[in-house]
């Protein structure tokens, strides 16, 4: 294998064929770019163009992307990638749940209120059908010692199985997780920029997914860069009717917290067809308090997650009730005065 450093054909003048090839390539490319969005390979409102935010990551801190399939939260939290776990370890209050706890509990309300009492709060909730077992694993794996945990969510949050994505992440080695984290990061960097000049044509997703959010390493909260424009009123479907629920995982979390004197309370951020019937059942079984805030005047952005303004309102309501609960007072006895 000999290599020739000079005497190559780098500087050969392009022939007519080469010019013709380049021209044809560009013409075909432009033709396809123009034509592909016009073709309807599927009936209905297809193709949809994937809209990605023009915004870059927020600049007031450290963030990673948590948008749709680019969700990095599980990798960062379970495998301790980046400084998130460092901040979670320092937090007095942890929030556990799914994406509704992220988008329905307001970062500004919770952090401001907590800071006014000299406390810190970290949102450990994860999207992609977040469940209590995953949070418990993170708490154990990284030896988190919160003094109070707020569990938010409907019955699925309490089920004693992992979500598919969480199961995959838990099964990864640290090496695999870091590779996946890098791929997600790089993929997002490329796709979000490419999407600005040449939107991807989407033929499979029935609805537009217009949320685009990054996750703060310091507070664990999603920061929305793009919010769906639809608005749906919140309706309580079943009121306080008793609802059979799994309590095993919640009890395990409660026992874990009790080992260092931590407490737990339950709540639910509403959504379009919210059912609160599981809360009294779990509350009674575990002997912990729960908060069901008033749903009046609340709206979701997509049927499932509260719109930002409603998140602020419901967060104020939840916080007001939270500080009056015996668990809160027991967790932070120094605030009794």
């Amino acid at each position, binding site marked *: 294998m000999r*290599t020739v450093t000079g005497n190559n054909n780098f500087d050969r003048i392009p022939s007519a064929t080469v010019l013709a*090839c380049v021209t044809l390539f560009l013409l075909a490319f432009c033709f396809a770019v123009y034509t592909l969005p016009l073709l309807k390979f599927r009936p209905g409102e297809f193709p949809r163009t994937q809209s990605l935010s023009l915004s870059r990551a927020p600049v007031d801190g450290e963030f990673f992307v948590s948008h749709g399939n680019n969700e990095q939260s599980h990798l960062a939290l379970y495998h301790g990638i980046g400084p998130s776990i460092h901040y979670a370890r320092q937090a007095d209050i942890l929030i556990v749940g799914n994406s509704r706890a992220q988008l329905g509990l307001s970062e500004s309300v919770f952090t401001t209120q907590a800071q006014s009492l000299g406390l810190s709060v970290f949102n450990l909730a994860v999207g992609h059908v977040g469940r209590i077992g995953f949070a418990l694993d993170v708490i154990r794996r990284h030896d988190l010692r919160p003094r109070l945990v707020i569990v938010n969510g409907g019955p699925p949050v309490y089920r004693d199985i992992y979500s598919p994505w969480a199961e995959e992440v838990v099964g990864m080695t640290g090496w695999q997780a870091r590779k996946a984290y890098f791929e997600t990061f790089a993929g997002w960097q490329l796709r979000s920029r490419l999407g600005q000049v040449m939107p991807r044509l989407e033929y499979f997703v029935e609805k537009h997914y217009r949320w685009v959010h990054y996750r703060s390493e310091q507070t664990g909260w999603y920061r929305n860069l793009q919010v769906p424009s639809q608005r749906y009123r919140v309706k309580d479907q079943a009121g306080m009717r008793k609802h059979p629920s799994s309590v095993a995982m919640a009890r395990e979390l409660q026992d874990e917290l009790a080992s260092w004197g931590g407490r737990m309370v339950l709540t639910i951020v509403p959504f379009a067809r919210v059912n609160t019937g599981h809360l009294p059942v779990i509350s009674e079984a575990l002997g912990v308090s729960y908060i069901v805030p008033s749903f009046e005047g609340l709206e979701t952005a997509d049927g499932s997650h509260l719109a930002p303004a409603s998140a602020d309102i419901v967060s104020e309501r939840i916080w007001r009730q939270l500080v009056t609960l015996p668990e809160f007072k027991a967790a932070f006895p120094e605030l009794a005065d």
Partner: protein
Amino acid sequence: MSFISFAFAVFYLLVLAVRWLPMPRGDYATTVRIFALLLLSWLFYAWHVPWYLLLILFSTAVDYVAGLIMSTTPAENARRRRLVLCVSLVANIGLLAYFKYAGLFVDTVNAIAGSEFSWAAVVLPIGISFYTFQSMSYSIDVYRGDIPAERNFLRFATYIAFFPQLVAGPIVRASAFLYQFRRRRRFHWKVFITGAYLILRGLFLKLVVADNLGRIVDQQWAQAATDPQGVLALSVLVFFACQLLCDFAGYVDIARGVAYQLGFRLPINFNAPYLALTFSEFWRRWHITLSDWMRDYLYKPLGGNRRHVVRNYLNLVLVMLISGLWHGASWNFVAWGGMLGVALALERVLRLTEKRLSIFSVLLWFVVVQLTWIFSMAMFRANGIEQGLAVMGSAAVGAWQLLLNDFELGEAADVLQLGWWFTLPVWLWHGRAWIAEHTRVGEAGALERSVYAGLMFAAVLQLYATGKQFIYFQF
């Protein structure tokens, strides 16, 4: 490391830099380049599970030493040569047996004997089926005296670990690769652009065709087994046949393109297989390097077609059963291989070769061949024989409904329509291949390829699907 990853993009830039950065002439520079290529190939492999690098080192070392011993052993000492070959084969097959087939073996014993042996599942080392076969072919060729043993360990190790074809083929023979190290190389734009074209074609086949079809197949598969409207199952099987082809052919195109850009030539692995008129022709067009491997190292040593006809048919079935098992450690793959082996033997029994048939018979047999392949996809994709049979049964109903023009697609209609659109590149590819084979038009020239490249590049940027691993990585 997957070709469809950003880690690979970074890795490949490094490889190109190492390969083409100016260096002084001479053997020293050549050795440095090969050494760098070897280290990078090992890095490529270790990216998956780092300690599995030991496996490829083991396989390489065993076959290198075996080759040297066999080459220095006089031909009269056949017993020693045979013994060394056996050690090489046992080592390679042993790796496969432990990492790939032990779980199947334990499960089968438990199912038959009612025992409860346990087996801790291990992560399958990617590409193990490919590089062990490649390694074995070298030992067998040296044993037969077809090629001399490679004395330069660096070259031999690079041949085994050459990253473009390491994890999913094509399976390259030593005789077709080792001599390339000795070739004088210059950088040629034409070669480089040809490589880029192959890489782009591979990305298009994988990201646009295979991955989008894969989404439909994944969505509809469970329903395909139970839906009374069998047209859905039949469509899903056609989609999967196209997905499998484009997934694998896409990988091989990228591998060949990358090898080209590094100054190496890899054999083609797919030649428009859905144009095959007979089963035997099909295997000359589909996964060509594996078919050749099976023919030269299994079928012929078993006696090939020189033995009694019955033995010949049995050999065909046996080879296809082993080919099925090679694809996956599961009985549905064995059933898949067996089904196609019986078809191949039947073709031989009926003496149906493309040259002896009338046009009507050719077309009729063509339909039989392609339908058999499509139906066999049910076994290939299924989780177990039972599910495979269910999908096949449903597809058979679908074929009948299609003949009678009596079917309704219901809610799945628009997704199926989408699927058929995504198969369009496969039909165009095969149509163009047919024209090249049967008319004077010939292969696509530079101008025609430029048009394809422009169209494919735009499609890759706008229609890509994400997140699916290459199917053949699991083999």
